[in-house]
Every structure is written in structure tokens, then in C-alpha cells.
């Protein structure tokens, strides 16, 4: 698994916007990139989805890109195929990139284990935070530790996040 302080592997993946996106290009244009392994079918992702949209909305002007990557095996979980991803993104009004990792190579390179699983990179592509979005998947009103937001604030201020690693909570990545 990618460890804090390590440089993240580059990737080039197709997005639901019918464009191809690379991490290198995203890093060139942003102060931080939050790579979140995600999917369509997982209820934990669904529970956190509106918070992902809110984070992207709140941090766009500050140079943050949130990138969701779906690596799940769509044969066993057809809700996670590319067509369904496009549909989900349109229905929910995703304001972040949603990419398909068909070969699962990116998930393996990062060591993603769950959906959602956050890997927050600074502008150099170095991992600064890894884990959950916050500490309450069920209820945004119950969040005591907004891990990703806190880590973003630290990274944007050029500081080290106080909490750099948390347990990813959610569905397991569905490997082929």
C-alpha cells in the first residue's frame, strides 16, 4: 500500500466525461489531488457521496481536485460498469472526475482496499493522508473528525496533517 511520504504512481484513465485523465496533468494544475477509490454500488460510498461533492465544491477555488476511481469487477458487480458510472455521475451531479480502472492496475498500485478509500496527494504527488473521508458514514451531523477536510487544510497550508492515516471504512474493492 502506498505509504505517507511516498510519491503516488501516475495513471491515465478514461472518465465519465469521455476524456482521458492523467494524474500528472492533474498535479500540474492543482495544489492537491484527492484520489478516492470509489464505485457505484457500495452503500458506504452512497452515504458519503454528497460529502464528496461538497468537498469538491468547497475546495475547487483553492486548487483541489477530487478524483474518484472505480476499479471494481463489473462482471460480478454490473452496477459498476462504465455505462452505469456515467449514469450515476449524471444523476448525482458529480462535480469531480469519475474514472474507470478496468484493469484494476491503479487500485493495486495504490493498495486500495475499500470504497471509499482516500489517498490525498500534495502538488508533488506525495501521499499526505490516507483513509476515510470522515468518522461518520451514516450521519454528516455526527462527524467529529472531518479527516479529509482537515488534511486538505494542512496540505494547502504547507503543513503535515495531524492525522495522516485512518482506517478506510466501506465495501471491499471487488477484485477480478
Amino acid at each position: 500500500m502506498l505509504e505517507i511520504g511516498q510519491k503516488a504512481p501516475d495513471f491515465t484513465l478514461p472518465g465519465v466525461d469521455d476524456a482521458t485523465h492523467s494524474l500528472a496533468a492533474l498535479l500540474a494544475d492543482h495544489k492537491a489531488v484527492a484520489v478516492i477509490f470509489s464505485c457505484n454500488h457500495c452503500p458506504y460510498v452512497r452515504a458519503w457521496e454528497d460529502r464528496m461533492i461538497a468537498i469538491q465544491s468547497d475546495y475547487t477555488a483553492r486548487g483541489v481536485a477530487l478524483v474518484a476511481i472505480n476499479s471494481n469487477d463489473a462482471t460480478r458487480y454490473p452496477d459498476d460498469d462504465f455505462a452505469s458510472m456515467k449514469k450515476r455521475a449524471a444523476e448525482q451531479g458529480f462535480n469531480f472526475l469519475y474514472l474507470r480502472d478496468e484493469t484494476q492496475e491503479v487500485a493495486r498500485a495504490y493498495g486500495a482496499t475499500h470504497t471509499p478509500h482516500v489517498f490525498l496527494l500534495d502538488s508533488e504527488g506525495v501521499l499526505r493522508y490516507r483513509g476515510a473521508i470522515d468518522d461518520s458514514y451514516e450521519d454528516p451531523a455526527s462527524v467529529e473528525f472531518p479527516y479529509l477536510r482537515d488534511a486538505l487544510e494542512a496540505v494547502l497550508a504547507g503543513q503535515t496533517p495531524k492525522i495522516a492515516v485512518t482506517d478506510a471504512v466501506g465495501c471491499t474493492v471487488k477484485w477480478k
Partner: protein
Amino acid sequence: MQIDFLYWAECPSHPQAWQRLLDALDALAIQAEVRRVEITTDEEALRWGFPGSPTIRVNGQDIDPAAKRLPARLTCRLYYRDDGRPSPLPPESMIRRALTAAQAREQPLEKGN
């Protein structure tokens, strides 16, 4: 009353769902025979008609009426809270409603006996 609590260990919400079930039984003072069943394979999911983890059935009926439309598979299950938010956990209110309804159905039989 017979209750089946079906779960897949890969979905981390099952301990919390189990506790919600026990709390609801306690709050409603319901005596029930509760069976915990761990589903581990696609074959078991099919055999049990398991639409995802966790699944709670009271006297054979799923606590969520929407379950009839769900395919059987090894997955985490999506519920909706009363406020409409998606959740991997069955809401306490859904569990209580199912238990109360089952209790009401059983009472006439008990009186008749």
C-alpha cells in the same frame, strides 16, 4: 418470533446492525429466537436469497419491503434512513416497525391458543 440476522463479514456495518436489533428487541420487550447466519459465498447468497449485508428477517419477512426487488448476491446492502439519506445500516425505526408488525400478527394467534 423467529429472526434471522444474515451478514457478510466484509461489510463492517453488521456489528452495529446486530446491536440495533438487540436494542430494539429489548426496548419492545420481545422474546425471539434469533439466528445469526454468516454468508460467505455467492452460492450461499443465492441459497438464502441474500440481497446484501446486513439482512434481517422477522418470521421470514425482510424488515425492508423494498427487498423483494433486490437480487441475491454477496454485497453490502443499501438502506435509506427516514430522512432519505442512504446508509449501509438499517434504521432503528425500520427494525422496530418490522418487530412491532410481527408482534401484532402473532398476538391474535396467541390469544386464540
